[in-house]
């Protein structure tokens, strides 16, 4: 289960605040995954006290609203990433970035599909730069794209371009994963699916033996 409480002293009209919170949730908590199980209790409650003395925000399109939205996105993304980083049994955070999709929603859906893949997560734990599993998870996301436009990078190492696998430095790619695991750092998977403006991110973690151990011993 994930729970969240957000507070701000911005002065914002109720309906605008509720829209902002849903947008930020969609860009953050709804873009994380640890094990693919959706809880019965997931909740975010967000309060706006209005005590900052700032201008009254009555529209999503005002300058003040845009600033508050980006700040809200940042706080929720920071918290969401820390949940994925702390995933049960995880040795590293996985950050998937998708560009070139038709829109933000499409990019986000592809990114989350890759972050949620048990095979991608297990490959990261096995320090295996497995571009095939990444490509497959992008392909079954439900978002259509031309596979000939598919580009995949692991960190700065390109594994696939124009839909074709590349002769990359496997040892360097594996060392990138080993280093992330040893330092509980971040593995970056960057995917391009076309030339569209859509950009999205999702976060997950690797899948270790400890995940099964924890959940075999902790009753729910």
């Amino acid at each position, binding site marked *: 289960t994930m729970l969240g409480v957000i507070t701000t002293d911005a002065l914002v009209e109720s309906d605008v605040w509720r829209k902002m919170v849903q947008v930020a949730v969609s860009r953050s908590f709804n873009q994380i995954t640890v094990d693919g199980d*959706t809880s019965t209790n997931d909740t975010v409650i967000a309060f706006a006290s209005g005590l900052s003395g700032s201008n009254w925000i009555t529209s999503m399109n005002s300058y003040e609203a845009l*600033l508050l939205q980006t700040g809200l996105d940042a706080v929720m993304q920071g918290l969401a990433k820390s949940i994925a980083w702390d995933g049960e049994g995880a040795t590293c955070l996985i950050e998937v970035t998708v560009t070139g999709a038709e829109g933000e929603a499409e990019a986000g859906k592809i990114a989350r599909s890759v972050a949620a893949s048990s095979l991608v997560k297990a490959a990261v734990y096995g320090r295996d730069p497995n571009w095939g599993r990444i490509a497959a998870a992008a392909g079954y996301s439900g978002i259509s794209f031309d596979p000939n436009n598919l580009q995949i990078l692991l960190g700065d190492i390109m594994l696939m371009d124009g839909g074709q696998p590349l002769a990359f430095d496997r040892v360097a790619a594996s060392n990138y994963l080993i280093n992330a695991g040893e330092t509980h750092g971040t593995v970056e998977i960057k995917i391009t699916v076309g030339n569209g403006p859509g950009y999205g991110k999702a976060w997950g973690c690797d899948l270790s033996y400890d995940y099964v151990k924890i959940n075999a011993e902790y009753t729910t």
Partner: protein
Amino acid sequence: AASDVNEASSYIPAAPILLPDGVWKQIPGGVTAAKGFKAAGLYGGLRAKGEKPDLALVTCDVDANVAGAFTTNVVAAAPVVYCKNVLSSTKTARAVLINAGQANAATGDAGYQDVLECANALATILQIRPEEVLIESTGVIGHRIKKEALLSSLPRLVNSLSPSIQGGDSAAVAITTTDLVSKSVAIEYEVRGTSVRVGGMAKGSGMIHPNMA
């Protein structure tokens, strides 16, 4: 009470928070960073094992505009159903009470009555209306909350409320279950010469694939 709060905030380490770059600066604190908010977290005897804090409270000094996002799992926990009902009829709230240990999910009508009792009891102590109190629960699914333990802890919890960083940190620890670290963050930015703060706390480690609306 101060001792409780300080002890609670140091029970587990804090998570590294990976904030994206922007016009803001990260500041100490979490839910208490913004003006008007207090928080507390302490051990209320709800957990099955150990004495890690398990009861958190965040309050606002004024009627705050409130928004919620909730699981779309149709088997929603009693506190989720309660909060959705409350937010469908009101735009402001003053407090959110959170327990760890029992999720109060798949507990039927009895579980919902437990939520109402907890909200009413807290509202009485805070001298606010029950519908200004929201509830979140996390823990074992299928178990009702240890209501007597929770209710008897409320006066101590309210007395522990603090606008300090420790107040926010203790609340962030008290909402954790299998988490190895607590999650708390706050930012500050300037808008037309006025400082605005946004803060938050979260918990989560397993059963994580949110689809909230």
